[in-house]
Structure formats: structure tokens, C-alpha cells
């Protein structure tokens, strides 16, 4: 029983960052119809910005997190303007290949700059975990969960409560009509890609201190983000948020009770199961895709 509760707690904490990753990716797909293969690289970049500001510059841990998120925001905007805007109107395969190229450049660039050796980010939290009964949670992981939930809430507020969010939702439903109503769709695309990228960078910056930082860390994170997005239905933000927690739960239980070697296979088995039973995702109903 205690073991089960421990797994559930771990899944909850991991799920928060997975949800961030998934929401970023599904926003970009839903609004722009772009399969973003730079998502994993942006996750890596977020973690390395965190590492640079905390370990190399000696800046405060809590200040470094906004710096990493801002880094993702700026890099995302640059990628959108330089590489996606010229391909507006091309088919989905072309933009996907452009993103694969950009992802390769970012990942190899990180490897070239920082080398392949994994780096640790020092955290200001006490080493001793919080112990409740037989269940133990590290303070760092609790902070990661809190920060992830806060960022998810902020994203929701941005989408549902602001004028920018209204324009994004309009572009999601019908970009041509939105443009006719005076929405600057080009600007919305840049904002969407920047927002999605900053969420990926935030996930990397949050999980970087929990694990270690290395140039290839984004590859698996990206595949998991795809799994989450398929689970929730392509373009479905709430679906992606819930999908993040479901994937984390499946991984925790799979690693705990089946085999830890197949932990990372859970997401893909879920994808295959979802496509067999409900090809449009678990939560597809009113929302339109693309």
C-alpha cells in the first residue's frame, strides 16, 4: 500500500512537468498545424540556461527559472520568424522537415558548446526529504510540482482571460476568418510558438535540477511529449494536461510493477493502445483539430 502511494506521489510530481511539455506542443500543433521537432531541443536549452545561470554565473536558483523561461520564449520567437514564417502555407511535411533540421542544429550546437558530459544543477533545497508516514518526497520535487502547476494555471489564464488568448483561440478555430476580423495572424503564430517553446524550456529548467543535464536529454522528452499530445487529442490543451499525468502514472506503475527497463516504453504502448481504441485521443469531443 505504502509503495503504491509512493508511486502515485512520484507520478503526480513527474506529471506536472509532462503536462507543461504536452501543452506547449499541442498549442503549436493546434494553432499552427506544425509538428514541432524542436520541442525536445528547447527543453534541453531550458535546462542548460538554468545550469549556466545557477552553476556558472552563480545567480539565485529562483531567479534562474524565469531567465530559462525567457530564453525559451526568445529562442522560440526567433525560430518562428526565421524558419516557419517563410514556409507559411507549405504542407505539414515541409514544416516538419524544417523543424527536424532546426532541432538537429540546436541539439548538435548544445553538444558542441557544452560537451557530452552530464552536468548537475545545485539546488537550494535541503537534502533530507519530507517524510509523511512511509512516503518520502524531496523538497525540490515538491517545488517542481508547485512551479509546474502555477505555470499551467498561468497558461490557462493567458488563453482564456486575455485578448491575446482570445485571438489565439480565434486563429485555432479558423485562421482566415480571424484574419478578416482584424487579428494579426502572423503575430499570433509567433506568440504561439514562443509560448509553446517557453513551456518546453520551463519543463527542462524544472527537471534539470531533479536529474542531470546532458545534450541528448531532449530526445526522449520530445517523444514523450508526442505521446501526451496523442493521448489528449492533437490540439487539445486540457487533454494534454491530463495526458501528462496519465503518462507519468503509467511510467511509474510500469517501472514499479512490470520492469524498470521498459519504463520509457510505456508512453509508446499507450500511443498504440489509444490509436487502436480511440484514434482521436481520449478527450476529443467539442474541440476542433487544426
Amino acid at each position: 500500500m505504502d509503495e503504491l502511494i509512493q508511486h502515485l506521489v512520484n507520478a503526480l510530481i513527474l506529471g506536472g512537468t509532462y503536462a507543461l511539455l504536452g501543452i506547449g506542443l499541442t498549442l503549436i500543433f493546434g494553432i499552427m498545424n506544425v509538428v514541432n521537432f524542436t520541442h525536445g531541443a528547447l527543453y534541453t536549452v531550458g535546462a542548460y540556461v538554468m545550469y549556466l545561470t545557477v552553476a556558472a554565473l552563480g545567480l539565485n536558483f529562483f531567479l534562474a527559472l524565469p531567465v530559462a523561461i525567457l530564453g525559451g520564449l526568445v529562442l522560440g520567437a526567433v525560430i518562428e520568424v526565421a524558419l516557419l514564417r517563410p514556409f507559411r502555407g507549405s504542407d505539414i511535411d515541409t514544416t516538419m522537415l524544417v523543424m527536424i533540421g532546426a532541432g538537429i542544429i540546436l541539439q548538435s550546437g548544445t553538444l558542441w558548446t557544452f560537451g557530452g558530459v552530464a552536468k548537475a544543477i545545485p539546488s537550494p533545497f535541503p537534502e533530507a526529504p519530507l517524510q509523511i508516514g512511509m512516503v518520502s518526497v524531496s523538497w525540490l520535487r515538491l517545488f517542481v510540482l508547485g512551479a509546474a502547476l502555477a505555470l499551467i494555471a498561468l497558461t490557462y489564464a493567458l488563453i482564456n482571460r486575455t485578448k491575446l488568448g482570445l485571438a489565439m483561440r480565434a486563429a485555432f478555430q479558423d485562421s482566415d476568418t480571424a484574419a478578416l476580423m482584424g487579428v494579426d495572424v502572423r503575430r499570433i503564430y509567433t506568440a504561439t510558438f514562443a509560448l509553446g517553446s517557453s513551456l518546453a524550456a520551463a519543463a527542462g529548467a524544472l527537471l534539470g535540477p531533479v536529474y542531470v543535464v546532458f545534450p541528448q536529454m531532449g530526445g526522449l522528452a520530445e517523444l514523450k511529449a508526442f505521446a501526451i499530445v496523442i493521448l489528449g487529442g492533437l490540439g487539445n490543451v486540457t487533454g494534454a494536461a491530463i495526458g501528462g499525468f496519465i503518462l507519468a502514472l503509467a511510467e511509474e506503475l510500469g517501472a514499479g510493477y512490470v520492469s524498470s527497463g521498459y519504463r520509457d516504453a510505456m508512453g509508446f504502448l499507450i500511443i498504440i493502445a489509444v490509436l487502436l481504441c480511440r484514434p482521436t485521443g481520449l478527450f476529443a469531443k467539442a474541440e476542433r483539430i487544426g
Partner: protein
Amino acid sequence: MTRLLPLALLAGLVALPLALGANPYLLNALIVTGILTIGAMSLNLLLGFTGQLSLGHIAFFGIGAYVSALTSLGFDVELGFGLRAVHEPWPPVVGFLLATVAAGACGYLIGRLSFRVRGAYFVIVTISFAEVVRLVALNWVELTQGPLALTNIPAFTLGLPGLGFWTLKSKLQNYYLVLAVGTLCYLLIARLVHSRFGRAMRGLKENESLALSVGINATRTLTVAAVISAAMAGAAGSLYAHYLRIIDPDVFLFATTVTMVIMVVAGGKGTLMGPVVGGLIFGLLPVALRPVMAPEAQWIVYGLVLIVILFVLPRGIVPGMAARLGRRPARSAPVLEASPAVPQ
């Protein structure tokens, strides 16, 4: 001119080792390039002719490599429930055939599973499949040796009873084997593309509703294309295993799929010569770049070249060059003429 190009290239490739002498480094690069080019040709059958991007293509390649290696090495595995699978080594040629069949069967499963949804879903299902297969290769240590790799894989043995057998151990022999299999795959794809089935494939890619309305069965056509494509990738994987004679789970690296995609897109997807030209350029690019830059920097160049080609020659090198020479390649002519119902 475009008719003569493949023949001229083939003649050049047959004569190349004579010009190179026996430079083992270059021959090795050419063999690996040739194997990857076969992979790229098989990927092109899906990406170029049906428009479905398989980003897990390396799974079929890797399955081919492992099936072929295990068939020729033999294995003894506990399956649980008191069941035990014991296999005595068979000749590599049988491994090659089984590799083709096994990879084709996986292509069938993936096709049946994901062509109901297609598009972005197909991309992600293929990636997921490759990742699951890689994790199995890594974790089923009893069968695959996991990260310790399968070693001492026998080299190909060719021959007929009564005429004697050759074991293809030298690089030169393997070079010609790869060239022969590659030529065979090229001819097969050329036959296929010009057949009724090929017209159905391209019809689906260009205008699906119109293709459906003239009675083309979309799921069946795409699944058959996936089976042939996967089987060819499996054959390439088998060549790889018996040439290197050692394989580990790194054979499933996503980067290799990306290399094949770059070969196809750069050369010209949906053309017969595109993957061959793209394959030769990008397979041999590392040889040219190796003296001047580190491997990470080479990958940056790869990414840049991919983006630049999409900007400058969105249809690829072969169609781009053909247009410049004043001739549209026959492949790019639309098979179905129809204006879209809704103007974009």
C-alpha cells in the same frame, strides 16, 4: 538524358573500385552509404510516392539486422511458462530472406494500425514503434545480448550446390553485393511505380477524394506500400549486420532515420533517382567533412543543408536539376488532374 543517367551512374559505380584501388576507408564509406541508400529508397516509396512520412524507418532496418543476425547465429531463449525456444544457426542467406519477411510483417502491422488516421499520427506511431523495438533490443538481454551487442555474425555465403560457395569477407565483395541488391531494389521500385499500383499510390497522394471516387482502396494501397517499403529496409538491415558482423541497440538511433529522410528530401522525394543522388551526397559528405570538422559540427552542417535545400530546392536536387536542364521528369507529372474544390 534522364533515362541515361541511372545507367551511367551504375556503370560508374561498377567501375569505381578499379579507380580507387583498394582503399579500405573509402570502400567502407561506400558500402555503408550504399546500405543507407537502399534504406532511403525504401523510405522514398512511402514518403515520396504516398506522402506518408515514416520517422521510425530505422525500426524496420534494425529488425532486419537483428532477425538476420539471430537466424545465422542461433539462440536459446527461455520464454517463460516452461517454454523454451532453441534455434540452430542457419545460413545468412536464409537470414536475409527472413529479415525481409519479418520487417515486411511489421510494416503490415504498423500500416494497419496507423493508416486509419495517417498524417501526423502515422509519423508519431512510427517513431513510437522504433523506440519500443529499441527498448526491447536493449532489455531482452537473453536474446539480443542487450548493450553487449551480437558479435561474430557470419559473413554472407553465396553459391549454388555443385558450383562451390563463396564467403563474402572482403570489402570489395561486400561492395558489389550491396550494389547488386541496391540495383535490384531500384528496378523493383521503378516497376512498381509505373504499374497500376504505382498510379493508385500517386493518385492518393495528389488528390485523395478523387482517387477514392475512382475506386482506389486507400488503406489497402498504403498498407501494401508500407509492407514493401519495410521489407526493403529490412533487407538493407540484413546487409548491414552481415557486413559489420556486430550489431547493438544503437542500430535503432533516430539520427539514422533522419539521415535517410535528408537523403530522400535533398535528392528529390517522389523521384526514382532522388534517393540515390541524395544518398551518395549525404553518405559521402562525412568523408569530405571529416578532416575539417568534429562530428557535432558535421551534424550542424547536415541540419543547415536540410533547411537550405527546403528553401532553395523545395522539390529536391534531381527535380531541380531536371527543371534547369529544361525537362520535367516524367515522375512529377500529376496522374490525376483536378482543381481543388475550395480555392486555398
